[in-house]
């Protein structure tokens, strides 16, 4: 079927019988398909996915740079490379950046790009809202990072922002320090973005599936998208309220976390971790989804125990809300609470282990193609297994009393977050690169980057287990040379530099491939799921010439093994759709970015306590939303240039 298409627009539709609607200039729809305007006004889930991806990778590099500065400071004892204050800003921003501005949006990039393709949809349920979620994300990222460029400096209270260190009494003892206000505001804005985006994904997955795509035929990545989206909408409110209460304390003199007014700083910890623990799964479940796509493709057999993998993912999400206090074993919760959270935390290891067993089961009896994405996916399995086991060690509260806030914990969560999330996301980039850009990375360079990253990562973080067990606490800018920590720290720093080289190779190769890489066929890996059925790579704007009908779990695999049947079916459906007016696409819009800009302006003025500006920002946002509502979803039609269907 030809991908060659012509388009017409609703309102200029010569086929329509209705009178042409006169639209005010305010509501003129942008129609550019290339250039800056097309990106600023896009509602295409693929373009939004790319915007998320590019921003996330940018912030990934920023966060990585911050990490390298931290490691250089710690390379030798009693180092004077950076000041305590800068060190504190760096570890605060490194964590905040990596969690909220790198891993989450990179997952969101895949949600956006792949999920609609995997369920056979032409876009998400609310395309303009999807654009809005991205622009709001960017606004939050700007607010968080603006501190680097102003006098007050970047946020320095830790990514967990434990009260009362965030109160005005301690964060700005001597002068109006807005770094904490920026942090509070930035996280709130990012929360809006995440919740709005997730609501959209939930509706899309539940409501926009292609015919035959039952819930138990959803690709696992889509399933994990759904679970993650639910985790986000249910967990972000807790931190948002905590941040609101903190903001009230800082700006309006309440005492939610202020001891002198009867506040309980421990309440912050509870609210934070009720969000914070599901957040851990928000970071890892998408990665598990990606790996669950890659392993079957390269093992060339279906995922082992699909229902159990799906069910365990949902169980992890559910239990994830019941284990938050294992971050607080050292806060003196008492024996019963400690025991209960200890046992629940152990319980969550079961569904996680189940996933590992099933992945191994997927490999078993397969015909493993050791391509670059597969290398990263296998790397994920090894590293995530290590991180998982040190996680089980933490679940034993008495052992955790020694490990909490030590480098053992740093080692643990980097194994889970880099060895887990980042490895899987890097695998995902490799895996879907041919689909997104129509080119593929050379196997040599891809595998080289994998090995350098893999070795650098282990050299950096494995010694940290020993540092923690040898008593080195986290978040310390200097340490003395007589504590037995020198060797491990130096090794870790060398490892971090190797890891940095690996990442540099990885991205260098990606950029080279984007411009000069080998062109691919559109089913490069002989894959199994619907996203690979797009008529061309990169996929056309309308994704599918014909909305697919799904007959089996690995829908594309089924199509490939039942070619004749599918051809016939597609021809019928294409005809039906063309008779119906063509392929309907949502129109682009200026208002998501206008509303998000209003939010950004308002937030920056609010943080500086300039209320007129804050109100002005709010007014711009309201106007954006108002015109957004008034302009309506719009839409236009694409008619494929195919003589069989050209009925007009």
């Amino acid at each position: 079927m030809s991908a060659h298409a012509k388009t017409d627009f609703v309102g200029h539709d010569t086929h329509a019988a209705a009178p042409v609607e006169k639209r005010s200039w305010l509501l003129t729809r942008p129609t550019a398909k290339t250039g800056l305007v097309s990106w600023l006004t896009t509602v295409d889930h693929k373009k939004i996915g790319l915007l998320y991806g590019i921003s996330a990778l940018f912030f990934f590099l920023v966060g990585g740079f911050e990490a390298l500065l931290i490691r250089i400071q710690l390379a030798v004892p009693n180092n004077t490379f950076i000041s305590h204050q800068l060190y504190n800003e760096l570890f605060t921003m490194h964590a905040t950046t990596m969690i909220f501005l790198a891993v989450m949006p990179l997952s969101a990039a895949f949600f956006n790009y792949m999920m609609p393709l995997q369920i056979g949809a032409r876009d998400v349920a609310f395309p303009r809202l999807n654009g809005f979620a991205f622009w709001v994300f960017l606004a939050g990222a700007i607010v968080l990072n603006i501190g680097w460029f102003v006098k007050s400096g970047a946020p320095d209270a830790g990514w967990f922002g434990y009260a009362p260190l965030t109160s005005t009494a301690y964060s700005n003892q001597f002068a109006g320090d807005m770094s904490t206000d920026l942090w509070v505001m930035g996280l709130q804005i990012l929360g809006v973005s995440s919740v709005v985006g997730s609501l959209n994904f939930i509706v899309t997955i539940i409501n926009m599936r292609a015919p035959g795509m039952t819930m138990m035929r959803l690709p696992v990545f889509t399933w994990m998208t759904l679970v993650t989206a639910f985790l986000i909408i249910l967990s972000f409110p807790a931190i948002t309220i905590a941040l609101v209460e903190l903001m009230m304390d800082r700006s309006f003199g309440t005492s939610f976390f202020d001891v002198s007014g009867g506040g309980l700083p421990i309440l912050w910890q509870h609210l934070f971790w009720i969000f914070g623990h599901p957040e851990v799964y928000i970071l890892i479940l998408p990665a598990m989804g990606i790996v669950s796509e890659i392993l079957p493709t390269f093992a060339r057999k279906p995922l082992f125990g699909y229902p159990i993998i799906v069910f365990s993912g949902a169980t992890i999400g559910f239990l994830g809300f019941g284990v938050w206090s294992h971050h607080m074993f050292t806060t003196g919760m008492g024996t019963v609470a400690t025991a209960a959270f200890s046992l629940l935390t152990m319980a969550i290891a079961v569904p996680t282990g189940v996933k590992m067993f099933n992945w191994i089961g997927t490999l078993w009896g397969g015909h493993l193609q050791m391509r670059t994405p597969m290398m990263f996916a296998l790397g994920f399995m090894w590293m995530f297994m290590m991180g998982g086991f040190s996680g089980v060690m933490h679940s034993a509260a008495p052992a955790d009393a020694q490990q909490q806030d030590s480098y053992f914990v740093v080692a643990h969560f980097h194994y889970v977050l880099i060895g887990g999330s980042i490895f899987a996301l890097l695998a995902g980039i490799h895996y879907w690169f041919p689909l997104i850009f129509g080119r593929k990375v050379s196997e040599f360079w891809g595998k080289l980057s994998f090995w350098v990253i893999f070795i650098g990562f282990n050299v950096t973080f494995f010694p940290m287990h020993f540092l923690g067990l040898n008593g080195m606490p986290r978040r310390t800018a200097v340490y003395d040379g007589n504590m037995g920590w020198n060797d491990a720290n130096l090794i870790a720093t060398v490892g971090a530099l190797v890891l940095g080289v690996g990442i540099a190779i990885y991205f260098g190769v990606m950029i080279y491939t984007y411009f000069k890489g080998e062109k691919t066929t559109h089913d490069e890996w002989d894959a199994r799921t619907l996203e690979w059925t797009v008529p061309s790579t990169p996929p056309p704007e309308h994704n599918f010439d014909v909305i697919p009908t799904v007959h089996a779990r690995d829908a594309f695999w089924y199509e490939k093994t039942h070619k004749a049947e599918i051809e016939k079916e597609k021809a019928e459906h294409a005809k039906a759709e063309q008779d119906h007016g063509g392929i309907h696409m949502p129109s682009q819009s200026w208002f998501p970015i206008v509303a998000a800009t209003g939010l950004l302006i308002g937030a920056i003025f609010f943080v500086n306590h300039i209320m007129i500006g804050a109100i002005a920002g709010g007014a711009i946002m309201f106007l954006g939303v108002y015109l957004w509502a008034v302009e309506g979803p719009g839409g236009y039609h694409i008619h494929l240039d195919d003589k069989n269907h050209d009925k007009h």
Partner: protein
Amino acid sequence: MSTHAAAGAIDHHHDHTTTTGIPNKKLFMWAFLASDCMFFGALISTHLIYRLHETPNQPDILGIFSLELTSFSTFILLMSSLLMALAVNTCQKGHVGATRKMLLGTILFGLIFLACQVYEFNHFVHLGLTLNSNMFGSTFYTLTGTHGVHVAIGVLWLVLMYIRTFKPADGSPWILKSFIHLLVFAVVIVAGMKALLGGVHALQTAHGLNGEAISLFFEHDFPAIVVSAVGLVALVMLGRDRKAVEFGEANAVDVESMGLYWHFVDIVWIVIFTVVYLLEYI
């Protein structure tokens, strides 16, 4: 009242059936409300935790609360839910006129609830309970204030929906008019609220409805009374539009989603009323 006239014969957003048969907007609202539950859950937990802890400067809560007033506003909010349900029902049947009336009724009841809350907050502040006078003030105002913001957003949404029922079917220019309509609403609401509270104040000062109260009322609130009266007339004029409109049965899902939100806000209020107010009396 042709629904599809303006969009042409090919509007797939309305005739495109979803996988589950539940309209997207409605599903979105359900998911959002699940999220909103957690917002209120966190706020109510905060309130309860601090209520169960010893905090300094604990106020005489029973001496501050007025159960009669709050019961009244609770009742009003519940009744607004009834009107909201009727608005959905009439819209589903395509009776735009009746829908408008029900929407206006819901708006009015929502505003009465908000007026009660403004009065209550004012009153409490006079009694010395402020946002930062003590922990009870902090949690009380933050929780009920967040709920009030939800009601206010609901009212704004209702107003926008009401205005939208006038969007002409022939596609003639309407944005500016809709914006003016919105502004008039805003003016009437603010001035009316001020006049209403001024009236209550006058009644209290004069200890009853008497000549003194009336003269006090006109003395203090004359501009507000005039502005709200003029605004009301303008609203009536704007509401007498007899052109064919686009709004119809197809918009029932919009009204219904809004209704879900409104009912949710009401239910949350019942929880707040129980936890924050009634629990103090046992």
